[in-house]
């Protein structure tokens, strides 16, 4: 029987194995690509997970983890920005500026897709990453990002449309060669 034992230890650790990577990547994006700070945030997320009830979280574990990670990372970012300068960091929610990835990781090694992605507004990048890297559904995305399902739909749609415009001529190649480079 594959049913998880009622051992509280195992379910948190199973979740850790499955989600630590995706969560660190996701939070690093919010934290200007800083993997170490992302790890700290994610450690806290899992410590908090220990206090949760497995039965309640099981059906929406990914949703919970990403949402809590997001909030925690945004908190870290706000706190730090307050310390560094008086400038308020625009919360990813409303920012229409290209995301931090655009400035932090703008180098030639990146694939064209990555560069095109980095040009998108932060909010669009975020949902695209959550969708295509981590496979979250619209509903889960809505819960994680605190937006409505229809808003998520629009963000993904706009993101894809923008990528199509930038990558337009590559799309055909992709079909035939199966490569993006």
């Amino acid at each position, binding site marked *: 029987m594959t049913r998880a034992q009622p051992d509280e230890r195992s379910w948190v*650790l199973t979740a850790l194995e499955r989600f630590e990577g995706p969560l660190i990547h996701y939070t690093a994006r919010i934290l200007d690509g800083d993997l170490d700070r992302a*790890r700290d945030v994610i450690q806290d997320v*899992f410590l908090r997970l220990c206090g949760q009830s497995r039965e309640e979280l099981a059906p929406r574990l990914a949703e919970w983890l990403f949402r809590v990670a997001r909030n925690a990372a945004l908190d870290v970012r706000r706190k730090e920005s307050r310390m560094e300068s008086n400038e308020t960091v625009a919360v990813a929610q409303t920012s229409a500026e290209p995301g931090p990835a655009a400035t932090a990781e703008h180098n030639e090694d990146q694939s064209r897709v990555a560069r095109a992605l980095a040009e998108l507004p932060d909010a669009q990048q975020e949902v695209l990453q959550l969708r*295509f890297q981590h496979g979250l559904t619209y509903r889960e995305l809505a819960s994680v990002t605190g937006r*409505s399902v229809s808003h998520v739909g629009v963000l993904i749609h706009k993101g894809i449309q923008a990528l199509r415009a930038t990558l337009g001529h590559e799309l055909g190649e992709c079909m035939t060669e199966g490569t*993006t480079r």
Partner: protein
Amino acid sequence: MTEQKKNERLHADDPRLTAHALGETNPTEQAELEAAIAADPELARELAEIHEVGALLEKEFDGVEPVSLTDEQKKKVAAAAAPPVSIWRAPLRVAAAGLVGVGIWWIAQSDRIADDSSTGPSTEATARTAVEPQHELGDVESIRESAIAPAVDPIVLPVENPTPAPAPAPAQKPRTEQAATEQIVTVTRRFSEDLLAAGQTPVNRTHLRFDAFGITGSNEGTQAGSVDSLVRFAQPDLTELALQSGAHADSYFMGPSITNQTWGSFGQPTPGNLTETALKQFKDHLMTVTDGKVSGWSDDQLRLYYFNKQSAESYARIVENAFANVKDIPLSTFSIDVDTASYANMRRILRQGQLPPPDAIRIEEMLNYFSYNYPGPRGDRPFSVDVEVASCPWQTEHRLARIALRGRDPEAREPQKRNLVFLIDVSGSMDSPDKLPLLKRGMKLLTENLNSQDRVAIVTYAGESGCALEPTPCNERTKILDAIEKMSAGGSTNGEAGIQLAYQLAVQNFDKEGINRVILATDGDFNVGMSEDAPLTRLIEDKAKSGVFLSVLGFGTGNLKDSKMESLADHGNGNYAYIDSIREARKVLVHEIGATLETIAKDVKIQVEFNPAQVASYRLIGYENRALQAQDFNDDKKDAGEIGAGHRVTALYQIVPVGGSPVGASVDPLKYQKKPQQPANVPDEVSNELMTVKLRYKQPDGDTSQKIEHPVVDSENEFAKASTDFRFASAVAQFGLVLRSSQFAGSATLESAHSIAKESLGDDLHGYRQEFVELIEAALPMFKR
């Protein structure tokens, strides 16, 4: 509406196309889109490119280097993930004077409930394989942390002073001796705390607790009650699990210990209306321990228990609106209502296997429980108005008109800052798993969802009121969560001082641009200080002038003063919700947070003028306690309901067309008045109108109202062709009419409500409509009796 959508040509730049490509559409939309795509090669190309971009993205993200936590970090998590298992060796002494020789214990284990379908190891087997004990009782932390971890040790219920009370007839095979002595008891946090707080003398403490506990209804003050409360304390976590699995807490409480004497004073069991499924569930988890032997409960005991639970609840009498003759009363005026408490309360009662009392059913609150796909507002208006008319399913010669309002969605503008003050009843009666612990979980959920600039304060009230948390910004979330965690119940209730303090804090931090709200959570028992309804509502009304809004959250059973709480919310410019499960807490506090907390228009009134050329008589379904005088409509001093972001308001009129069979009593024609002429100067272009729906509302901070007029022409639509939402709402109304045993129910039956509801589930994102269908199914057998 739906037809409009279908006729619209699908534009290539439509988010629905992307949603379709990603498999995010519901079957109806999917079919529509597929048809549109098949018909349009441009769309098909579009779709293919979306797929390609998706594939590119997946590949891109796939190439990301794997990362993980450091070993140090992993160790920390692993350490925290393994709570020490507590063991509780002290035999529990149920020994107070006069306590009868029958104790009841629960020998379920948390995972038995969680994994209902489990064919896995029996509780006994699990017990043997469980982890070795590491801590004795006395290690506070370990016990606190072990909320759900099963403790493993036989608990003996020594029966002191054994009265030869006849054991209740076992309804199922008695468990074995071994099972009786090897019971597995989930040691819970609250019970452990109780033990420790009492210096490890659980017996006395428990009894003290019971004294303050105030078990309600027929159990009050009886010896049977003591065991009841004792076992309740022992099982909050199991109850929580039960709550999560959708059951109501009460279903999993222990019943009273039963003696002949107690049974006698309760009288004969009522004809049971506990459903078979419910009975079966309970039997699996309920045990009676008699002289070390364990047996199940009989059906009659269970039924009686539930019957007794019911008795102390009070509901204001509802006199249903009658049919009004258009010639006599051409105007129908009422205040909107977005409360949903009645629905949750009805659900709780039905889940317990009982029929709710008719006055517990407020049809408008049932209608407004559900989310409908009404078109959103355009322009600056805070809400949209939509009217749909079709034939009435329970009286087919009549028409049913549905007036629908939809508040603008919460994300349409910058999130406002929230200044929330929780005012929490921590009196003894809140000390029940379906009250304070449930509320605490709900508050934690809400706190997780607040932004860091939001502020939360907590005022508790019992014998004396106190500030449990000064207004704290949400970037100090842990501080808030700690304060929530620390609250515990005890003492009697003084609502007044608490209300004063809560409003004072809310006003101190008043944010003109933000949302300022006091959230009162209680089981409705104000029994110290100002407990009379009238002065209390006046106080609230007075406080509402400060611009602070009020939400009232009702908890628990048995002592629910439903009408009082609703009236408090009404006077405090607020809304009232009843919370019966963690699911409901989430719906109210988290999913509807925008709606519960962000008012977008206040004093919203509806007035309908019926055209006597078309309508003979009409009846507003529900909204009985929201009726207004016709002249109140234009009177801006008259208070009415609020609408929040994302809120939907639905009202149904049953309309008898001219020439249709008249319903209800009629008045004699007047002798001395001029007979009203048939529509005298009605211009042709409006004479075919059925009615005009007029709305008045004020901006949340405004004093003068604005008016919207919405003329309605009956398009002679058949019920079968009405929109999904219309049909679903009509099923909800039918269910309400049947539950109320309404004289206006016509041909409405549970069966027809069921079949209509089942066919009109729509998107049902959160599964609420499906749950409604199941509730009807739960009610069916009770009506057959």
